[in-house]
């Protein structure tokens, strides 16, 4: 029998075209894929996960385990629930997990083999012969699992929206709306969140309610919505699904802004709402559960309330003559709906005893002469890719009925997912046969069916009572029903199979193809804890997380184990409530905004002058400058290095961390923070200094400028800057609050230029004609402040290249101007800009270390021969005590040395190791002893050969000895001599010239 259309206000009359597996269908705007397919009599929509069984549409909402499709027109989005995704004109959809086609799927062979594909079969086989797992079995398993095909590249512009609010109401169904009504025009800021595009929940999805306060449900919804919208303090978010309930009332909700529309890639198609609220009201209803029987997965089996929802919410009657199978009182409204539409169920099967079945049901069945089976159940159904015959067991007798649809209701579960995410405790309720919220952990209130209140009549009292903590007025709801007010249910989770067969299957998890037999087998094997059982059988681990079935499995297991369900317990509910888009989680802080780029005030100049940039933390730093289009990095660095040593070069060092330190006790503080002693240091001089962790290992270095005993300026490495400042603050605030010292980061307040090379003095004299740069007036490691145009600058004599050098500090506003001025003055002296790579090369020639390169968190200053930097007479400084531990004071620790190749053509590679062998075996089986590693390796243009710095065991005593350095991809090692790490100007003549 085919579907018919029902008149429905929630669906527009506007027609759209969609394609499914290549065929075009007519649908209405507002349809979901599922309602559209049902409207077109399509019931087979996919193949199952493991056995590739034909599957149809099982539900009408987020709980769908079966009807997952791929949206080709949206970058191949896989595993989309057909039951919630709204169609638009031109939408292209395919089914999943089948080959070559949905009807004829090769993978269905798995169904034939299913008896051996029992729970956990893969743990018991595929173990040999060697290599077969990797090359045959695993690829096979992987290919046959997995559902949808991979999507295509997709750069989303989905956004985030934060909220801080007093109350969030999750779910705008009957209870959510009634609750919201209470907050109208109050001082509370309220967010009302509804996943559907219409408010009303059960009111619009079913025929359960006749009138509210004398209005039809539809009228009541509109009236309520309007009064909420008129109230300034309440915001309604539609098409928005709450997925996550974190600690301290932090919620995540996903809004689909393009529901039913074709996505515009330049807009945000999804908004992730991140909400912090003082109170959360959960009113997100209930989820109907199924019943396990033989072939309960055949296309055509559908949950009863979902069937009803298709009629009311989407205006499609999937089938005129379905069979109804229920164990509770709620299916009355479906029955009435069908009758009203002139349809007539083929049979009504109720597992309850006749006496317990509501008279109204019995009356209708009788009046309409509908075959009625009480105290009966569905044994199973059969058919080729769809339900064809349905077998009913009543006592000892069996009846077969022909129908293509079977509506099942196994009762309702309060939708406790979000409540348990919030860490609230749930409790088994014998009356509704389900778990319901008990003790909240946070400020959480549950209302309506979520709270296990299945009585419409008691709803009003519940709301008024639970919300009495708020200063609000009472609401009143006078509800007239189409269903019995008293909910009655008979326990039924699984029906018995008539003919035992190895192939007979009653499913407990439709998504992961888990059968009730699998549960039993797992328990037989010892997996008698619910969490074990879950992992062994994969029950409730699918995309639906067992929304319609997990409680059933607990019940079945508890029966086998002869335990109470509350003893068996639930598995842990984890976020998200339903699968949550990665693009939405990422929001805009990815792609071009993945991490902010920090730029110096000279950045534009660097760009213009062909700088190639390096990422240093968030900073963009010139790595090297291309002199011509074809210049390679190696050529550029060699050129820069040579030119600097011959003439002059300038580096944008603005990224260096700078900290201003001031106060009565600044000197004492500095003496504690750094290894160096600052007491005897003269004002307006500077010093290279080192900072350790309490473990004695080098953490950072920098130059300290002493203005006075009460005032210092420290520089730090570019990436270490925040950490150094934070550490200083930490010690000041927590360990030494008695010290009067204040700190300010001034990193950003200065552009810093490092200019060095033999011609530097001449250039500086041109730029600053009024300043005396002579050695006497301006010796090495001193600094001075000068007026410069409308600002002040600080110049320090220092160098990291080993050449005569100055560092200039200027306010960033004037930085670029000065930089350009220096270039115009430096032109005739061949001044070049250089980048970090050249800086690293030059300092290596000079034997200076770089934090993070020579050091790796395991190096002390002593290891670097920097004993002179340690204030031996200081009683204490951070890390001092650690330097005398047995291991840190060992003589054979790794120490800094230089490496020089014996054959000057050989290249010493950074990261390689120093060994005693001149050759390595092709395949290394036993570890080869090594002395240490090359921490820096460069080709020195000034020495014209490769050089290295290395950290090697007992290195200080190995000067002059010959060893070998390994080389990438080669067995032959490079002979090297251990040398002093200072390759250029060991007497510091250039530095002090």
């Amino acid at each position: 029998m085919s579907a018919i259309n029902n008149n429905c206000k929630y669906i527009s009359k506007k027609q759209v075209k969609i394609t499914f597996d290549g065929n075009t269908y007519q649908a209405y705007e507002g349809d979901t894929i599922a309602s559209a397919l049902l409207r077109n009599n399509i019931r087979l929509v996919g193949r199952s996960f493991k056995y590739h069984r034909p599957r149809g549409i099982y539900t009408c909402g987020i709980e769908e385990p079966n009807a997952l499709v791929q949206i080709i027109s949206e970058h191949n989005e896989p595993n989309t629930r057909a039951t919630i995704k709204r169609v638009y004109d031109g939408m292209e959809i395919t089914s999943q997990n089948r080959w070559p086609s949905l009807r004829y799927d090769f993978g269905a062979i798995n169904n034939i083999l299913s008896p051996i594909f029992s729970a956990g079969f893969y743990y018991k086989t595929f173990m040999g012969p060697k290599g077969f797992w990797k090359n045959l079995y695993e690829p096979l398993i992987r290919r046959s699992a997995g559902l949808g095909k991979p999507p295509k590249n997709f750069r989303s512009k989905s956004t985030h929206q934060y909220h801080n609010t007093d109350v969030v109401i999750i779910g705008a169904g009957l209870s959510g709306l009634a609750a919201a009504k209470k907050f109208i025009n109050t001082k509370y800021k309220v967010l009302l969140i509804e996943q559907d595009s219409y408010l009303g929940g059960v009111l619009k999805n079913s025929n359960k309610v006749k009138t509210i306060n004398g209005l039809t449900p539809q009228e009541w919804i509109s009236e309520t919505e309007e009064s909420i919208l008129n109230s300034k303090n309440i915001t309604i978010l539609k098409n928005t699904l709450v997925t996550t309930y974190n600690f301290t009332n932090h919620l995540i909700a996903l809004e689909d802004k393009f529901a039913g529309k074709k996505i515009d890639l330049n807009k945000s198609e999804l908004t992730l709402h991140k909400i912090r609220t003082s109170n959360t009201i959960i009113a997100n209803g209930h989820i109907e559960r199924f019943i396990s029987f033989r072939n309960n997965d055949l296309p055509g089996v559908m949950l009863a309330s979902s069937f009803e929802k298709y009629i009311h919410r989407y205006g499609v009657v999937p089938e005129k003559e379905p069979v109804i199978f229920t164990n509770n009182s709620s299916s009355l409204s479906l029955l009435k709906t069908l009758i009203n539409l002139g349809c007539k169920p083929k049979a009504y099967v109720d597992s309850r005893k006749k006496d317990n079945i509501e008279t109204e049901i019995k009356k209708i069945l009788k009046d309409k002469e509908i075959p009625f089976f009480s105290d009966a159940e569905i044994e199973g159904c059969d058919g080729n890719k769809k339900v064809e015959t349905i077998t009913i067991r009543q006592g000892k007798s069996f009846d077969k009925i022909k129908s293509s649809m079977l509506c099942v209701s196994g009762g309702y579960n309060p939708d406790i997912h979000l409540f348990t995410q919030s860490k609230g405790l749930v409790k088994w309720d014998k009356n509704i046969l389900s778990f319901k919220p008990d003790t909240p952990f946070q400020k959480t209130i549950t209302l309506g069916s979520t709270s296990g209140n299945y009585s419409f009549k008691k709803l009003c009292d519940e709301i008024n009572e639970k919300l009495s903590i708020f200063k609000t007025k009472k609401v009143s709801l006078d509800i007239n029903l189409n269903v019995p007010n008293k909910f009655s249910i008979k326990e039924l989770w699984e029906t018995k199979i008539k003919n035992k067969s190895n192939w007979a299957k009653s499913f407990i998890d439709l998504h992961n193809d888990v059968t009730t037999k699998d549960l039993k087998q797992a328990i037989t094997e010892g997996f008698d804890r619910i969490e074990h059982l879950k992992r062994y059988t994969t029950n409730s681990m699918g995309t639906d997380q067992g929304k319609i079935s997990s409680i059933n499995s607990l019940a079945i297991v508890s029966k086998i184990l002869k335990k109470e369900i509350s003893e068996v317990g639930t598995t842990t509910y984890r976020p998200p409530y339903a699968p949550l888009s990665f693009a939405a989680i990422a929001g805009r802080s990815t792609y071009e905004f993945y991490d902010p780029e920090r730029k110096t005030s000279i950045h534009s100049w660097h760009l213009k002058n062909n700088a190639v940039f390096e990422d240093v933390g968030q900073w963009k730093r010139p790595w090297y400058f291309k002199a011509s289009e074809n210049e390679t990095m190696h050529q550029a660095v060699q050129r820069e290095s040579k030119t600097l040593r011959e003439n002059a070069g300038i580096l944008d060092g603005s990224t260096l961390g700078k900290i201003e330190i001031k106060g009565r006790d600044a000197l004492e503080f500095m003496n504690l923070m750094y290894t160096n002693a600052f007491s005897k240091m003269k004002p307006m001089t500077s010093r290279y200094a080192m900072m350790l962790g309490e473990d004695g290992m080098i953490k950072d270095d920098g130059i300290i400028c002493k203005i006075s005993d009460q005032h210092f300026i420290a520089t730090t490495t570019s990436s270490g800057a925040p950490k150094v400042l934070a550490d200083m603050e930490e010690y000041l605030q927590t360990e030494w609050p008695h010290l009067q010292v204040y700190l300010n980061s001034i990193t950003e307040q200065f552009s810093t230029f490092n200019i060095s090379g033999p011609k530097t003095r001449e250039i500086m004299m041109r730029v600053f004609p009024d300043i005396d740069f002579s050695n006497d007036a301006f010796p090495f490691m001193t600094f001075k402040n000068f007026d410069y145009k409308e600002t002040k600058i600080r110049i320090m004599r220092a160098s990291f290249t080993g050449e005569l050098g100055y560092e200039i500090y200027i306010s960033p506003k004037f930085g670029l101007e000065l930089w350009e001025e220096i270039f115009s003055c430096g032109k005739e002296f061949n001044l070049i800009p250089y980048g970090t790579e050249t800086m690293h090369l030059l300092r290596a020639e000079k034997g200076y270390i770089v934090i993070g390169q020579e050091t790796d968190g395991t190096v002390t200053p002593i290891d670097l021969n920097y004993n002179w930097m340690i204030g031996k007479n200081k009683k204490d400084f951070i890390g001092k005590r650690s330097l005398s531990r047995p291991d840190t004071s060992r003589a054979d620790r790794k120490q800094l040395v230089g490496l020089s190749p014996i054959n000057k053509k050989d290249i010493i590679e950074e990261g390689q190791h120093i060994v005693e062998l001149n050759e390595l075996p092709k395949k290394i089986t036993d570890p080869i002893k090594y002395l240490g590693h090359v921490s820096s390796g460069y080709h020195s243009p000034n020495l014209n050969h490769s050089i290295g710095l290395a950290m090697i065991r007992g290195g200080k005593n190995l000067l002059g000895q010959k060893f070998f350095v390994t080389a990438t991809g080669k067995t032959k090692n490079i002979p090297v001599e251990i040398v002093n790490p200072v390759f250029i100007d060991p007497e510091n003549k250039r530095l002090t010239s």
Partner: protein
Amino acid sequence: MTNILSIPGVKVSQKDYHQIIIRGNGLEKFNNIIEEKTSIKPPSKNLEVKFDLNYLFAKNSFDQWSLILTEKKEHHHILNLVSSINTNENMLASDYSYGQVYFEIEGENKDYFLNQLTHFDLREEKFPKSTMAQTVLARIECSIYNLGNKYIITCNKSFEDYFQQRLKDTASLN
């Protein structure tokens, strides 16, 4: 002043201001010195912002103040002010004029707009007029000054391009 963006309910412009960060104990002597040098009494309540047309003086925490001067001044003037404060042993003043950038955001939707970039609770009762907050906006550290009808937001200059782009991007997706 540069216009950054203007959409219904939100207007953002960039400003050229001066700023001095002052650290100290906030006791009477401190207050007197500050008042003497700047002729403004420093705010004494934590997070309080005093402002008029020419300045914005905020207490960022118990030992830190930021003084923003909205009038255009010679840099020397600022630097001299800084060094004169620094003559006092137990105070530290640092010039923050050009190492920071300043954005003014106004319009009735400014909260909604900003809350696309920050979790910070802008509700009147949590963030009253004439207070300031140091927080995170668009993944970077910022200070926000609430002047009632508008906010002033400052961040490090190195983030200027990034921050402008983020603001414009947010507006374009609104």
